[in-house]
Structure formats: structure tokens, C-alpha cells
């Protein structure tokens, strides 16, 4: 501000002949003297409030009914770092930061299309934060965009510290455990979503960007799927579906098979499990619930602790779960194996918010198994499916393209076909321009 405005003004007033008319004077200053970028002329006080509080400079001149609104906002911020929540082995390592302009730049760097739009909105009655709705004109379906903007307008709160606030206002069903809007820290994920006809919402002050709509299939995909060759990517995706299965069913199956249908397991296995459970005072259901809750506590404690102490939790947890509990005769070793496998599987879900919802669903499945055995599990599974087919994300069925079946989208769903064959944007997005050279990137 100092070098661009004050110095210039002082310097010029000393030397040059300036027009006498204040109105012309202001124009001269506006056009010639101030060397800052993004200068606007404002007439009413309402135009100024928000910008002044954001850090802009207001230039007033006596005798004119106009002022200059000069963008001088600037502040210290975090450097661009690797995203913490979504790591990849191969692929871009940049993550979003708290600064909105930097984030826009990061997205823009991936898509240099003139049709990429950043619509500015203000959010929060008191905080007046900037929020950007980003999409690619010509790809996104207008109705979808309209619906998202309509919902954004209903937001009524003082402040939105994180996009999580916006997510809750936007989502279709507030009772659902499933994340109906994706959040990400990765610019490459955002840009590929934009090219698929989705809408991204960026908020000032948070590195988490929302992507709407989201589907169940999306939640089990990682950007890395497109950076590795398709055979490997397909294998990893299949592995993830297996992980999802284990994350939801494993402890419930343990309960059901041990308490209701022991005959279903091979005889030798049943005998060895029974032998291992010798001396365990609790029925399988209580045993499993105890272990799952312990596991959740460890997870939560591990997330909250500073990184240096965090490792202690690992050691303590490993000892408590792995060894001491077994030798104390509270749980059986088989249970420990199951819980460990279950925990590992739920960490393999690429989207953290889906991982959490699986943990909740898991508890439901365990209760169902405790009540009705394997019959209860399948009823619970049917219920989850009923819920999913009724769920929508900003109007798009959550189960697409499984549920409303779109054959064209199956080349990039459970498996990932070679990129050359993925030459259309997702059909379920009903994009304006459905051909893409490359859907993945």
C-alpha cells in the first residue's frame, strides 16, 4: 500500500500540474497515479463496508461523491504443503491452503479453460467471508448449478469457519451417516471433478474444498487411480471394495457365526475359535462391542494428540489390545485379529468421511447380528441399501451409476478401464458437453 499509493500520490502532487476540478482529479488519480491492481470506483457506503473490513484501502477526496476502493488486502499464510488427509504415492503433492486466492490459483493452474468460472459469494451474517462457487461453464448441468446456488442462498448463520458448515446446509438428508458432499484438500481432485461437470465450493480460511454432487462410487475412488496404470488401479479399486466389505461386516459376522450359526464355519475352525475363547467371560457380542469401542477410543485419542506423543498411543494401544487384554482373559485372540483387520480395512477407504460413516454403520450391523445372527446382518444390509437408493446428493441419486444404471459409467467405477477408453464424462452427471478427451484428469 505504501509504495503503490502513498508514494505515488506524494511524488506526483509535488511535481505535476493537476486538474483543479476534484472530479477530474479523482479520475486522474484513478487512471494514472495509483499503481495498485484491482482498483474500483465506489459510490455508496454499502459497497465499501465489506471490502474495508477485508483489508482494502479507501481513497477519499474532498468534494467528490465517489471514492476509490483499492485492493490492498494481504496477510501471512501457510505455505503450500502436501495434503495431510489424502496422501498419494504418485501424483501431485500440492494441497490447498487457507488463502482463497492461492486456492483459486491452484485450481486455475490445472484448468486453463476460459470457461472455468469462480462466482464470488459472501457468507456469514457477521463474518462476511468470501466463498467461491467454481464450475466449468458448458460442462456443468445448469439445473444442478442453480440448485446448489439456491441452497447456498438459504444459508443463514453468523460465521462459517470451515466448509463443513456449508456441507451441512447443502446436504439432502441430515440423518444419513453417508457423506453426501465430498471434501478434499487436493487441487487435482477438484479439477478433475470440475471437468466431470461437478461444482466445487471454496471458502476463505480453510483448505477443505467441497465437491457436489457426490456418489457412493466416488467415495471409493482416489485420484491416484488415474496416475497408476489401469491394471494396478483396477486391482487397487477391487481391494478397496473388499476393504469396505471387511470394514462393515467383519465383527458382525464374528458375532453372528459364533452365537447363532457356528455350523457355518469349518469344524476345525469352530473348534479352534472355541478353544481360544476358553475362559473369556463374555458372549461374543459383548466382547466385540468392547473391542470396537476401545479401538474407536484409540483412534480418536491418536488424532487429537500432538504428533510426538501420538506414537505413545500406538504402543499403548498395541499392548493393551494386542497382548494384555488377551492374556488377562478378557478377549480372545481371534477377536483381536478381527478388530485389527477391521481397523486396517477402514483406514484403506480413501475418503475419511466415508470411513467414519462405515464405523457407525458397523455398530448397527453388530447390533443386528447380536439380535438375529446372519439373518439380522442381511436385513441390516438391505436396510443400508434402501437408504442408499433413497439418498440424493444435490438431486443426483447417491447410488448412481449402480442404482439408476448407466452402462457407460462402468468403465470407471469398480474397475478403471484404460484412459483411452474413458472418453466420455460421467453419464449420471448429464453434462452439457458429454465428450471428454480424458475423464480422469
Amino acid at each position, binding site marked *: 500500500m505504501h509504495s503503490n499509493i502513498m508514494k505515488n500520490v506524494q511524488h506526483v502532487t509535488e511535481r505535476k500540474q493537476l486538474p483543479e476540478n476534484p472530479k477530474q482529479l479523482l479520475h486522474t488519480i484513478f487512471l494514472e497515479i495509483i499503481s495498485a491492481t484491482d482498483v474500483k470506483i465506489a459510490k455508496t457506503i454499502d459497497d465499501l463496508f465489506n471490502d474495508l473490513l477485508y483489508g482494502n484501502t479507501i481513497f477519499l477526496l474532498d468534494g467528490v461523491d465517489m471514492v476509490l476502493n483499492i485492493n490492498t488486502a494481504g496477510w501471512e499464510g501457510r505455505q503450500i504443503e502436501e495434503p495431510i488427509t489424502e496422501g498419494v504415492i504418485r501424483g501431485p503433492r500440492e494441497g490447498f491452503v487457507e488463502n482463497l486466492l492461492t486456492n483459486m490459483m491452484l485450481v486455475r493452474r490445472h484448468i486453463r479453460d476460459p470457461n472455468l468460472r469462480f462466482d464470488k459469494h459472501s457468507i456469514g451474517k457477521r463474518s462476511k467471508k468470501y466463498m467461491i462457487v467454481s464450475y466449468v461453464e458448458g460442462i456443468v*448441468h445448469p*439445473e*444442478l448449478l442453480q440448485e446448489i446456488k439456491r441452497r447456498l442462498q438459504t444459508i443463514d448463520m453468523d460465521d462459517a469457519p470451515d466448509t463443513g458448515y456449508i456441507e451441512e446446509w447443502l446436504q439432502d438428508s441430515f440423518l444419513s451417516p453417508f457423506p453426501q458432499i465430498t471434501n478434499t484438500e487436493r487441487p487435482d481432485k477438484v479439477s478433475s471433478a470440475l471437468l466431470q461437470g461437478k461444482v466445487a465450493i471454496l471458502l476463505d480460511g480453510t483448505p477443505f474444498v467441497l465437491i457436489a454432487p457426490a456418489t457412493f462410487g466416488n467415495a471409493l475412488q482416489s485420484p491416484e487411480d488415474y496416475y497408476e496404470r489401469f491394471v494396478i488401479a483396477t486391482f487397487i479399486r477391487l481391494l478397496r471394495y473388499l476393504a469396505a466389505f471387511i470394514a462393515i461386516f467383519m465383527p458382525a459376522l464374528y458375532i453372528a457365526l459364533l452365537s*447363532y*450359526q457356528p*455350523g*457355518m*464355519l*469349518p*469344524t476345525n475352525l469352530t473348534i479352534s475359535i472355541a478353544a481360544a475363547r476358553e475362559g473369556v467371560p463374555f458372549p461374543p457380542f459383548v466382547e466385540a462391542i468392547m473391542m470396537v469401542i476401545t479401538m474407536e477410543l484409540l483412534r480418536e485419542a491418536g488424532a487429537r494428540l500432538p504428533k510426538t506423543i501420538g506414537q505413545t498411543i500406538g504402543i499403548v494401544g498395541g499392548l493393551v489390545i494386542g497382548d494384555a487384554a488377551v492374556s488377562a482373559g478378557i478377549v480372545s485372540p481371534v477377536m483381536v485379529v478381527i478388530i485389527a483387520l477391521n481397523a486396517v480395512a477402514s483406514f484403506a477407504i480413501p475418503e475419511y468421511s466415508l470411513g467414519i460413516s462405515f464405523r457407525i454403520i458397523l455398530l448397527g450391523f453388530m447390533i443386528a447380528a447380536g439380535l*438375529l*445372527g*446372519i*439373518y*439380522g*446382518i*442381511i*436385513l441390516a444390509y*438391505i*436396510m443400508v*441399501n*434402501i437408504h442408499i*437408493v*433413497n439418498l*440424493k446428493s444435490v*438431486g*443426483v*441419486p447417491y*447410488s*448412481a451409476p*449402480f*442404482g*439408476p*444404471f448407466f452402462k457407460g459409467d462402468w468403465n470407471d467405477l469398480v474397475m478403471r478401464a484404460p484412459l483411452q477408453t474413458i472418453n466420455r464424462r460421467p453419464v*449420471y452427471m*448429464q453434462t*452439457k458437453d458429454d465428450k471428454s478427451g480424458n475423464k480422469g484428469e
Partner: protein
Amino acid sequence: MRPFEYSDETISEKELLIALPSMLIASGVLSLPKLLAMYTVAADGWIPLFVSGITNLIMAACVARFTMQFAGQPFYSYASKLVTRPVAWFFTMAFCGLFVAIAALEVREIADISKSYLFHRTPVEVIALSFLLVVVYAVCGSRAGILRLNLLFLPIILFIFILLLSLDIKFIEMKNLLPMFQTDMKDYMRAMPAGIGSYSWFGIIWFYIALIKKPKKLGRKVAKVMCIPIVVYLLFYVACIGVFGNMVTANMIYPVVELAKEAELPGGIFERFESVFFVVWLMAIFNTTAMAFDIAVYALNSLFRKVDKHKFVFTLAPVIFLIAFIPQNTESVRSYDSVLNYFALSFSLFLLLLFVTVQKTKGVKGNG
């Protein structure tokens, strides 16, 4: 550019086409081979099964072709155009009753089979009630949702069907299947009801046609998908006879589940495959029940438009539960089943003939 139509309460042809096999593949098939084996020699039961399958296929295709012209209209509205309003009202109520009865039958069968293969101590009522509650949850949701469930479940069901057959193929003995064509005409006729029974629930077309916007060549497509249940039934029947022989099959209550009992998964993860099989088959039965219940509610809703859908759901649920426990034993469940099937088939046939004649004489036009 296409509008976001698919996310509304309309469905595409695909969903109706998947709904048909999902509706027909249900609990009936589990006991079907027994009923056929009772009257026929060796594997001759395939003839009545096939003949009735083809009959029903033609019927379903005709119904689809006829209703296609009224696509997008509820049954009650096009029926009242053809025959008068009171008559249409009566037909709708009859359909409602039919589908309530079908739902009740499925609930009962679930309870019976679970009792004999999964639980021994849990009371049947608890099993049936928990199943019914899940169905109620589904029916309370959106109608398109139920049809989408079919899309999610049918592949799993067909997968377990193929898996079961491939695991059992080594037990099939050719001598059980021969000699062929030894049954006399009278016995074929006696076996016919069992064959017809399992196919006759294609009546869902009468109602779900209302959800489709612009069907094309629906008759032919319906005929194609009707082949799926025919193949499933035939292969199950042949496998049962091939593995157990005619005599043993005739004396089993649920031969197909017994078939699963014979199968062994390589690797020995699950000792008793029949539990796995039945649990997956439960999804098939669930789909049928949910659709039947949904149509019953749909029928009532088209008569009383102002009443909330949920009210019908919660009034019909106890009715279904009570009807399910009217038959005292397996024998009476079976006769209940066959009465229902005969009614379903003849009612569809009757409606079709009536409607076509009326349309010809009165010249009522469809959507064009």
C-alpha cells in the same frame, strides 16, 4: 443436453425390465422342483415348467404391449377410461388384495425357511416381523428407490445362482435325468399348476407402466427378460433332479436349499453353503415382497389420492402380518400359494381380454 429426469420419480425402461425377473424369482422356486417331481417321472417336469413359462412370457409381453399405449398413466385412470369408473375401482381393489396376499405369502415363506435352516429357537413371528419391518422401511421410501434396489440385488442373486450350479455340477448324475418323456398326459396336466404358479406375478406391469415416460417396443423387451426366470427355474429343477433323483426331490420341502447344502465352497471358508445361499436369496424374496407391498399401496393411493402414502403402509403392514399366519402348516401355505397364482394369472388374462375388446369396440385411444 438432457434434463435431470432420471432423478425424479420416473423410471426408465431398464428398471421395469429388471423388476420383472426380480419379482418372479422369489421363494416359490425354492420348493418348485418338489411340486413338479411329485407328479412327473425322472426329469420330465421340465416340460410343464417350460410350457407354462412360455405361456406366461407371451402373456407378459401382451400385457406390456397393451399397457404401453397408456404409459405414464396410473392403472386406475386408464382402466376407468376403458371400462367405467366403478368397475375400474373394483379391479384396482382386486389388484391391491392380490398383491397384499403375495406379500403375506412371501413373509410367511421367509419365516418358515429361516426357521428350518437358520434358527431353531427363535419364534417364527419374530423372524417374520423383523423382515416385514425392513419391507415397510423400503415401501416408505421412494417408489423409484425400490426399483433401483432390484438393480443392486439382481446381479448378486444371479451370481449366487450361477455359483451354486457350478458347485453342484459334479454331483449331477445322468441316470437321474433319464428316461425322458415317460410321464403320461394326465400327470403333465397335474404338474402344470406348479409350473404356472411361479411365473404369474408379472402383473406388476399393469402398475409400473405409469412410471415410464416413453417406452419403445416394450413387448419384445419384456419377452426377453422373462427368459431369465425361465432359465433360472429350469436349471434349478434339472439340477435338483440330477443331484437327488426324482423320488428324493419329491420328498424334500425345499429342494433348492438342500441343493445348496450339497455344495462345498473350495477353500472351505464356509462349511454350510446353504445358509449363505439362503441369506442371499433373502434379497430376492425381499425385492418381491417390497414390490408387491408397494403396488398394493400404489393401488390404494390411486383410488384415494388425498391420503398420505404412509398411512396406507402402516395400515396394510399389520394386515399382511396377520394374513401371513392364517395358513396353519406347509400344506396349507402351498394351497394358498396355488390359489393365489391361479388368480394372478387368470385375472391378468381376463383384464387383457376385456380391455382389448373394449378398446376395439369403443375405440379408446392411448397416448398415441
